[in-house]
């Protein structure tokens, strides 16, 4: 009896803590619904009592191309990352060529390099090649955030696939490529989902590469859409926050649809189980 009320008290405290933690998210939604004339009101309305959708109308008018570009760049980054990381993960986990250890170390170090340093290097290269302000140049740059992570996830996951399955496919006469395509890849669905999720989310959220490499072109992602809003008309905060809400949708969808993959991705590499 005592433990049950204790548990209930825990639930109440948990709800309060979550509310406190998510207050900024709530505030973003609240401001996005606030009419422009009430924006500077003191005290501010803590609840959207007179909600307006003028902010969201501004999103529809101004930001749709940016959202489309971000979608394209996100999907492109996922495709490129999977294409590179899945075969490499298979090789590192099951074929183990010479230098596997060194490559793993290189991938770990690659993840520690600051984004601005990469951005500056990419800027010079893209300037030479005339790739600045191109959407697929941005896909290449964004993929550098996800590829090392992807290889590590695939390697860890495919190491867990029983060697008997791989050798059985071999004995049946399947070459390495057939084994990879028909046996290992279908079994690696969880790894594919995790890598895709994070690859998409990182590309969608990228600001450093976008601002450095794609500041002037016609294909700008949503992060730059918001940034431009803040810079230009920094009075219309309902429009800015409405864009922010819309830009958060992929994160929310991923959390609802694939929560366990998200947790798996966060812990991968950090904790040995």
């Amino acid at each position, binding site marked *: 009896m005592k433990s049950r009320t204790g548990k209930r008290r825990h639930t109440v405290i*948990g709800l309060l803590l979550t509310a406190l933690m998510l207050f900024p998210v709530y505030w973003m939604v609240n401001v996005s619904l606030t009419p422009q004339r009430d924006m500077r009101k*003191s005290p501010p309305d803590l609840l959207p009592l007179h909600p307006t959708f003028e902010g969201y109308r501004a999103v529809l008018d101004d930001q749709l191309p940016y959202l489309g570009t971000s979608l394209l760049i996100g999907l492109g980054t996922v495709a490129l990352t999977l294409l590179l990381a899945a075969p490499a993960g298979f090789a590192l986990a099951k074929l*183990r060529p010479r230098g596997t250890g060194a490559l793993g170390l290189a991938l770990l*170090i690659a993840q520690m390099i600051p*984004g601005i340093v990469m951005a500056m290097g990419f800027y010079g290269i893209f300037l030479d090649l005339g790739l600045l302000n191109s959407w697929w140049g941005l896909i290449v740059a964004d993929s550098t955030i996800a590829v090392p992570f992807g290889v590590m996830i695939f390697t860890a996951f495919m190491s867990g696939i029983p060697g008997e399955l791989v*050798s059985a496919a071999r004995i049946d006469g399947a070459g390495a490529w057939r084994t990879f395509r028909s046996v290992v890849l279908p079994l690696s669905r969880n790894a594919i989902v995790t890598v895709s999720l994070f690859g998409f989310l990182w590309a969608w959220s990228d600001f450093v590469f976008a601002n450095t490499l794609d500041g002037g072109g016609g294909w700008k992602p949503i992060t730059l859409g918001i940034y431009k809003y*803040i810079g230009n008309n920094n009075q219309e*905060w309902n429009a800015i926050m409405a864009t922010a809400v819309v830009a958060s949708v992929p994160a929310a969808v991923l959390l609802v649809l694939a929560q366990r993959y998200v947790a798996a991705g966060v812990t991968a590499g*950090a*904790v040995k189980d």
Partner: protein
Amino acid sequence: MTVARVDRPRRAPAAAVRASDTGARCLRRRRRLTALAFVAPLLVYLAAFYLYPLYRNLDLSLRDYTVRSFVAGDAPFSGWDNFRTVLGDPTFGPAMRHTMVFTFVSIAFQYAIGLALAVFFNRHFRLSTVLRALFLIPWLLPLIVSASTWSWMFNSESGVVNYLLHFLGVAPVGWLTSPTWALASVIIANIWIGIPFNLVILHSGLQNIPGELYEAAALDGAGAWQQFRRITFPLLRPVSAITLLLGLVYTLKVFDLIWIMTKGGPGDASSTLATWSYQLGFGTLLPRFGPGAAVGDILILIALAFGLLYIRVQRRQES
């Protein structure tokens, strides 16, 4: 990885039966070539899109670039000049200090709050799984979303933070506009973003502590605090080390958040090595790519120092 080692002896006899000694060698070479074919795209990619940009950055930091020579590509080699310029710059001291304060204060709070929450959520009450999932949201949001939301919350006249402080009888604070508070503001926002990461990793570490230990301790009359101090904290030390070091490497290179909220200002009040490097290279109409790249190199060195420490700790835990 153990799996790969287990299946090797099983395959070897089968190959030996089928082929002579030279045949086996031939087979092994073919297998090596196959493996190489699978990693080759990755190797080419790493060379072209990691090593080459890094090389370009290093090259930038060792030459005397102007906008014209940047485009023409004929900047003269200048050795350590850029590094000398950067080290002698009045911004260097503050930027270095802010980087350290930003990193260590962020990490300390993220870890302490993350650990407290992990212990709390480990008690499996109703809704605990759902609420723990909701805690992930700040970490998943695009940084520009979090940064602009916090910017508006910290607004000196109309921000909700000052409004809430008003309730507590505190006078309005110019969070992002005063040199005293700008760094604190970005640190607070960064702590908020980093808590989920710490919570998730530490929580998964707690799962590996056997429940019997707590039961035995409870029988011996140990209270909740005693149990935390004698069991949870010591047994969580390996996971804690990994979390802190990984957090360190990630926090050192935070750029988006500070750039969007304050651009490193007012003045240099919240500039770190990351924002200063960007400021030099891209922040003005007259870019100074050389010094900007030099600051980037210094940042890499610091990140790698902590990164190698992380790898060492992780390797030692694995063995």
